[in-house]
């Protein structure tokens, strides 16, 4: 960012965020305010190289490097005249020579080598090929042609699709109408009860609907060439209660403890909903104490001495 600086007034992008560098044909940048100031009369010399410039020719700088900026500018100008195409030459070699010449001209102008001679060459060429230049200018380039063709194609496709949908809808509408008429007709003429007739019609309607296509456009029942995944049967999970080796008397479940009178139901009631937070229940404390008391009561290490202590 620091690099962007007006060479004349030394304003940087940092100090003035709205700073815009403009360039003219010589490629030397100037900031907006400097251009306004120096070229109040519409034209003047470039402060860098002294070439006389016109204010209208200033444009926004695209490339940071003024050399490239200048080259692009010149190339644009030259290609306006040197607009021959491959079809205009008899052989590929000739066309290549022509392209090389164009490159030479651009290079000479940008590097200021034999500027006058080159300019004269350009002028000569322009005069000699006046006819071809104007003819080619009116023609579209190959790329442009291709693009326009693409756009055209797309438009056509869209139109076709819209038409198709409209037709489809109209058909559907018509069928619906017909069915309705048939229903009314039947209701007035048939001897069956009204409910039965209506039901029969509804069934019919459903069948009609089922026959249509999927939204993706694949018709119902079409076989796709995709292998179905082999289904693997998994056993369903079923809860198995944990078997605990208490090594002592068992501690009963919640209901049992309450029945035995370890605590009253009232004392365990959780009045506030916040009591339930964390999943803690008052009885847990009780159960835990009893478990601690009973677990390992029958423990007798001689039974366990067969176990590998591993120490």
């Amino acid at each position, binding site marked *: 960012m620091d690099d962007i600086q007006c060479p004349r007034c030394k304003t940087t992008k940092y100090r003035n965020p709205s700073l815009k560098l403009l360039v003219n044909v010589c490629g030397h940048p100037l900031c907006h305010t400097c251009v306004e100031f120096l070229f109040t009369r519409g034209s003047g010399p470039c402060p860098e190289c002294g070439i006389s410039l016109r204010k209208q020719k200033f444009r926004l700088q695209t490339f940071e490097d003024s050399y490239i900026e200048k080259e692009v500018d010149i190339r644009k100008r030259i290609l306006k005249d040197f607009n021959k195409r491959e079809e205009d030459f008899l052989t590929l070699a000739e066309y290549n020579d022509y392209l090389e010449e164009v490159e030479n001209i651009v290079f000479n102008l940008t590097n200021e080598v034999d500027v006058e001679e080159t300019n004269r060459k350009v002028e000569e060429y322009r005069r000699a090929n006046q006819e071809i230049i104007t003819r080619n200018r009116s023609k579209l380039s190959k790329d442009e042609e291709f693009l326009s063709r693409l756009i055209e194609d797309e438009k056509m496709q869209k139109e076709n699709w819209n038409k198709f949908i409209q037709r489809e809808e109209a058909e559907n509408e018509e069928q619906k109408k017909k069915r309705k008429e048939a229903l009314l007709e039947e209701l007035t003429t048939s001897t069956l009860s009204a409910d039965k007739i209506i039901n029969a019609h509804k069934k019919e309607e459903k069948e009609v609907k089922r026959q249509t296509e999927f939204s993706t456009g694949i018709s119902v029942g079409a076989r796709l060439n995709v292998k179905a995944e082999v289904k693997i049967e998994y056993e369903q999970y079923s809860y198995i209660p944990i078997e605990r080796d208490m090594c002592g008397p068992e501690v009963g479940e919640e209901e049992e403890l309450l029945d035995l009178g370890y605590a009253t139901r009232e004392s365990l009631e959780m009045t506030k909903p916040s009591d339930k937070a964390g999943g803690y229940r008052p009885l847990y404390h009780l159960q835990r*104490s009893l478990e*601690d008391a009973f677990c390992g009561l029958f*423990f007798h290490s*001689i039974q366990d*001495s067969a176990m590998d202590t591993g120490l």
Partner: protein
Amino acid sequence: MLFSTSTQRKFWIFPSIDEVRNLRNEANSEFINKIGIKQLSEEEARYLLTPHQEYKLSLAYEYEIKKFCMSFPTPLPSFVIATSMIYFKRFFLHNSIMEYNPEDIMITCIFLACKVEEYYVSIQNFSSYCKLMPKEACEKIVRDNELLVMLKLHYHLTIYKPYKAVDGFLLDIRTRCKDVKFNFERVQKIALEFIDRSLHTDVFLLYSPSQIALAAVLHSVHREGHNLDEYVLTILLHDVPQETMTKVIEQIKKLRKLVKHQEKINRNEIADIEARLRAFKATTTWRSRNSQFDGDSQDSETCMD
């Protein structure tokens, strides 16, 4: 998690007191082999501790643990004290007190117990409460020994303790044995005292916490002049095979006896043992040899001095 599936049951409870003694003897002789008894001069060999002396000294340090924990501005709760004492016990069950400085191990065990029991004391606070040594030295000891202690405990850090079990038994008695009339608060208090005393014995290496709790409750009820035989026989051990019942009763009896006849600490004797240990450590040959087989001990060596 229950005691019945714990590492405590699997690895740290031994069939008999003789087994426990054997382990201590092994630890002692292993250490002596390690430093090579033949290379010791006669003078040095004289200072070696016997297994029993080692045990006595470790018992004395267990009292020190309690003292240390109670000296905190808010004394550490009993479950932390119990855990650190059991760590200390287990550590010197397989290691000789001549090899590792008991004071260092003691401090590390306490700090580790605080952590494991989720009773958070930061190392800064911990070391500032330590009155045995300067703050920095205490921090260094914990830093140097914490991993060692955990390794030697085989990372079996969960300790099942009988405190909650006492509550459980009292609750059960209150519920299922309504005709017993005694002051539950006093009984609980005496039972907890019994547990505290039992921490200075080997019962934690021999019996399950549940059995210790039951023994504590029976002891304190007995002290209060009541009898719980009926509760134990007809309610607690109701519909239990006769064989198991007699075994449990036998276990409890042995346990109570063990706590009742626990070894007393004689200050003079301990001072004597400590002097011997110091003299033994002061021998230069031991020190240089120690650093040979215990590469990282040089740091802790400087702390010991």
